[in-house]
């Protein structure tokens, strides 16, 4: 097994024991990238080459010099007997929605295509302070607006390492694809409606959306400020816990970062789960979506293969001593998407007004008569279709005459969605759940081009993940087998506020229980080429 395919915690252990050097791990990751990634995403790369379909294209920007300087510093620390940190020598990637000093920070958009951040996001600083090596910035849907990565202005867009004709999911698709292909052991993603968990499920890796406020948003280019959560993407639960240890915690630069101590998330991973109550809800085994063709709401059961993967995961957890509680009512789940359509658009529109071609980012090169024309031209040329859609919708539903009908109503239904969770997690209540076990996605990864452009249908891919963002609670997606099409299936655990340690503990128990399964040994197709 190559160094880049080892778990992050093993890499850090070996580096700390001087069995390998940080430079060795860096070189292994760069070698893997050279073998599988192909050309990085660039603006204006609209022409497709046949070779593009054979590569992953996770990256927008590689930062080998930054990583090399960091690796040399780690190796020096170790040789001097100093503590190099818990992530010593672990290569990681960063979704290009985080500012990193001195590198381009593009949000996958032309409007920030030339933006070089003058400061570094707290999460990235903490990963580097922990000994991690930032090897590059990975692709995403433009401003995170999408579930496939196809809306990025930087082409070629990422492909799914298990099947290169499929999307990696989104919006943290570059993150999930990179981890699955061994291009860096860890990746920092963000989750506003499922943007960590859905691509993690599609790419067969672990992705965690922490509780809102558990991880600082400082340096994260904002989308939905009441929903955005930075979080880990990793190959396994232990690595996820290790990464969360580094990035979680209060931050003087973010007034919404909760003032709560950070436990050692790796501590309880071996604790048994006997007696924990894990719920299954029928409301998470179907999706309700609006069909623009018929104008009707349609209800569809999730794919039977995904349902059986969830039930099989429940079986493993029961074997480990958990109590599985069925028929948990989560009646407001179906409203998650329409509520999200309103709230996220209002927040997005507000956040996108700052891009005007004045102080940073793209300004139209054309001659313009005056400032308003410069604004219009710069925004028209700089934003892709998805940001424009969100700006227009956000302005409409928050306009004075419609705000009560749409925005305020959505905020009230958000309360009902939150109440569903509070009731089932209430330790004095009827259900007293420690966690809810659900599918992460209604389907496996869709084909490239399949539903891109239909923003309504694409959004419904998030129906099972978005309630956690609206409620603020944590969630984790875990690999749980494969469908007949050979694509990974993810299952999701949701828990009460700040219950990350418990979710990781249950996740680890599931990994241990299913350790001997054949599907655990499968590797992404792209790795057969290296």
């Amino acid at each position, binding site marked *: 097994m190559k160094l880049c395919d080892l778990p992050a915690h093993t890499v850090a252990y070996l580096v700390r024991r001087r069995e390998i050097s940080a430079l060795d791990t860096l070189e292994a990751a760069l070698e893997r990238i050279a073998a599988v990634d192909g050309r990085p995403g660039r603006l204006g790369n609209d022409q497709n080459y046949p070779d593009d379909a054979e590569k992953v294209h996770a990256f927008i920007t590689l930062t080998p010099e930054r990583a090399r300087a960091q690796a040399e510093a780690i190796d020096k620390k170790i040789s001097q007997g100093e503590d190099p940190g818990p992530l010593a020598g672990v290569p990681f990637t960063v979704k290009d929605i985080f500012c990193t000093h001195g590198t381009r920070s593009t949000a996958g958009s032309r409007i920030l295509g030339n*933006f*070089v951040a*003058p400061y570094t996001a707290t999460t990235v600083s903490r990963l580097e302070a922990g000994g991690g090596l930032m090897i590059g910035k990975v692709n995403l849907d433009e401003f995170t607006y999408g579930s496939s990565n196809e809306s990025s202005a930087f082409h070629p867009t990422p492909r799914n390492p298990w099947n290169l004709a499929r999307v990696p999911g989104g919006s943290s698709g570059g993150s999930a694809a990179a981890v699955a292909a061994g291009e860096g052991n860890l990746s920092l993603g963000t989750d506003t409606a499922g943007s960590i968990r859905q691509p993690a499920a599609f790419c067969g890796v672990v992705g965690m959306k922490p509780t*809102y*406020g558990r991880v600082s948003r400082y340096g994260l280019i904002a989308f939905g400020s*009441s929903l955005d959560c930075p979080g880990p993407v990793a190959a396994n639960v232990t690595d996820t816990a290790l990464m969360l240890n580094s990035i979680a915690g*209060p931050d003087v630069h973010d*007034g*919404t970062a*909760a*003032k*709560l101590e950070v436990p050692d998330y790796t501590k309880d991973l071996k604790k048994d789960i006997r007696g924990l109550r894990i719920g299954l809800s029928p409301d998470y085994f179907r999706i309700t*979506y*609006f069909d*623009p063709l018929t*104008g009707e709401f349609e209800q569809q059961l999730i794919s039977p293969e995904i349902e059986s993967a969830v039930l099989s995961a429940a079986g493993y957890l029961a074997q480990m001593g958990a109590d599985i509680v069925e028929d948990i009512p989560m009646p407001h789940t179906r*409203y998650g998407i*329409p*509520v999200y*359509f309103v709230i996220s658009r209002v927040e997005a*529109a507000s956040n996108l007004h700052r891009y*005007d071609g*004045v*102080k*940073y*980012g793209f300004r139209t090169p054309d001659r*313009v*008569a*005056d*400032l*308003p*024309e410069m604004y*219009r*031209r710069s*925004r*028209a040329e700089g934003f892709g*279709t998805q940001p*424009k*859609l969100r*700006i*227009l*919708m956000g*302005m409409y539903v928050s306009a004075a005459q419609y705000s009560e*009908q*749409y925005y305020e*109503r*959505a*905020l*009230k*239904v*958000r*309360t*009902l969605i*939150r109440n569903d969770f509070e009731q089932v997690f209430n330790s004095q209540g009827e259900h007293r759940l420690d966690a809810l076990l659900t599918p992460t996605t209604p389907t496996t990864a869709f084909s490239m081009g399949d539903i891109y*452009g239909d923003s*309504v249908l694409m959004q419904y891919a998030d129906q099972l993940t978005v309630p956690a963002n*609206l409620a*603020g*609670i944590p969630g984790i997606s875990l690999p749980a087998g494969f469908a007949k099409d050979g694509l990974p299936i993810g299952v999701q655990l949701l828990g009460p*506020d700040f219950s990350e340690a418990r979710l990781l503990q249950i996740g680890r128990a599931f990994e241990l229980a299913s350790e001997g399964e054949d599907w655990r040994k499968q590797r992404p197709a792209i790795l057969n080429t290296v």
Partner: protein
Amino acid sequence: MPEKEQEQPITPQLFDHLVNLASLELSREEAEYLRRELNNQLKSIDELEAIPLGTETEITTHGVPYTPQITPEARDDRWQACPNPEEILAQAPEVRDGYVVVPDIPHTDLD
């Protein structure tokens, strides 16, 4: 103008008004696509109207309640020098003598 367009919540006229407010310019194809998507999304949002909401239902602005125990204190409101103003200015499309340059700002009379 086909009657159907005028029956949709976002008519072409309202759409143009929104585009203007948003400081955008759109090609005809882009405008058609975006207006169709907006009207489709609104139909989906309309589902919310069917949910009975009592007057006692409060709004939720953040999922997690910010109790005093977890809310950080505001930091001191103290001036700090920016460590790298030149890097920030270097991001501006046009700068002269330390000032950001923009095209002419037309005179407008407020209503």
